């Protein structure tokens, strides 16, 4: 058994990229399967919470389509009680949201590791995890907005009203604010180590604040419109299967995105180092070639690039 594990480790080592690509393909296939299943085999779900805000027009347990999207019976009567398939967004919206929190946690863990070891590799990983968080947070908010439009509100104009009155949406906006602030902070600090340290500290702080804002927003706000019991025991098997497939698919996609981005950034750093070396070599050659003080137009001389310290 131990030999097998060691063999597997040896096989996997140095093949992160291949694995990431394979996982991206599998994740894509799984997500597609979940998509098809959500619209074909899954039953309509009936458990959502009661909407108790006057401005949310559908005070009903079932997510309803706005009247104009309701399937109209041919005899001309209007049937307002058909649960609409907007509820299908659930299978993608929830996994993306869960994943965004997972990657956010990953960023904080890498930040802790960075502060302990001062290894720039961890800083890179933390930053890429934060980028992935941004991606998934935006995905959550966009899919959530679509769902909101279909089940709570009558026009897109009401969307921002919901954003500021529903606890879960508010806390998600705060999380987006954190991720954006993280990148704003990164941009405005000069000096590699300083930038890495500050952003690591901030991402740890953000990770601690997010649960606070989740709890405190609920404590202070009585409005509750967002469905909460997504994983309650009442969920049908036909709902649960595409949901779980989608979670795994999204996780694979997330891992693939993260790994490929880390790889890309590492390659970029290597290219920068090589560029500096080339400019150094050019500058040395120019110096050697023109000892009389003739004008030096090489890139390094014009831009004043600092010499790189060590050849890799």
């Amino acid at each position: 058994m131990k030999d097998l594990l060691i063999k597997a480790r040896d096989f996997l080592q140095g093949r992160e990229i291949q694995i990431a690509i394979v996982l991206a393909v599998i994740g894509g296939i799984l997500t597609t399967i979940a998509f098809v299943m959500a619209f074909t085999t899954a039953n309509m779900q009936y458990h959502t919470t009661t909407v108790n805000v006057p401005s949310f027009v559908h005070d009903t347990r079932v997510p309803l389509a706005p009247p104009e999207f309701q399937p109209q019976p041919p005899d001309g009567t209007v049937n307002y009680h058909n649960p609409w398939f907007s509820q299908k967004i659930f299978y993608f919206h929830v996994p993306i949201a869960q994943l965004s929190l997972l990657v956010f946690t990953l960023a904080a863990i890498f930040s802790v590791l960075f502060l302990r070891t001062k290894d720039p590799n961890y800083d890179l990983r933390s930053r890429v995890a934060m980028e992935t968080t941004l991606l998934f947070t935006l995905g959550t908010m966009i899919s959530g907005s679509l769902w909101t439009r279909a089940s709570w509100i009558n026009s897109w104009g009401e969307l921002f009203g919901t954003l500021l009155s529903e606890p879960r949406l508010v806390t998600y906006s705060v999380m987006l604010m954190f991720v954006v602030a993280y990148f704003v902070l990164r941009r405005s600090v000069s000096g590699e180590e300083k930038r890495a340290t500050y952003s690591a500290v901030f991402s740890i702080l953000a990770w601690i604040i997010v649960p606070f804002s989740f709890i405190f927003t609920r404590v202070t706000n009585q409005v509750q419109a967002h469905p909460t019991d997504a994983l309650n025991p009442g969920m049908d098997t036909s709902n649960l299967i595409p949901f779980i497939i989608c979670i795994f698919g999204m996780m694979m996609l997330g891992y693939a995105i993260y790994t490929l981005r880390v790889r890309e950034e590492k390659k970029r750093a290597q290219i920068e180092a090589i560029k500096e070396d080339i400019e150094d070599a050019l500058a040395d050659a120019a110096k050697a070639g023109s000892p009389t003080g003739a004008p030096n137009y090489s890139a390094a001389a014009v831009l004043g690039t600092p010499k790189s310290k060590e050849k890799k």
Partner: protein
Amino acid sequence: MDNSLPKISSWRQYKALLRKDIAQELRTKEMVTSMGLYGILVLVIYYIALSQTGTEFDVTAIAAGLLLLMIVFTSMLGLNRSLIHEHDQGQLEALLLAPIDRPVIFLAKATTNFLFLAIVQVVVVPLFYLIYVSGALPVLLGDITPGPWWMTAIVLFLGAVGIAGVGTLLATISVNTAGRDFILAVLFIPVMYPLLLVLVTALNAAIMGGPGFEATFWQMCAAAAFYNAVLIAVAYGLYDYILGV
């Protein structure tokens, strides 16, 4: 050789740092005057903003929010100023060279920030209270009976502790960046979001009164105290890394 120098206790280091900041403030009077003046100017802006609301408008309903807004603005101004000297005149380097424990630097800085914030609030908040709470029409007519004034004082105290504690960490980060004031605002608002939320709920309970407002008030105060305890501990732990680079 090592033992030839007497070990200075952290308490004495803390007192010395505190004395330094207070002496500096007494000579320049820079932070307290700028923050106080800014607070009064915010009151003028409130007057302008609310000048067209008419007599029917119940200002006490938004008084908690207005008060918190004033405190957030003045404290952000003060936090920014509090570390600019340290940074621009190389005081921080001198402090790091001196045999002072780094957590002590954090605690001393947070304490002075709290102190200046408290002094400014003692001047500005009563003014606000007289205009927008005890001088408001519904209160004068007796439609609303606000809670006692010390309730507001407790909320403001908790707010000042949180703002000074966590804000000192954020100000130390932002003072080293390119766009100081802007970066402080960008970092400050999301980090303070949970605290500000419970503070405004507690303030609203204290100002509006109403049935059962004490329960809400004490719950929110407990929440704010919890936030302060956790976040100040975290800021205390992380401050060392910030100063190190």
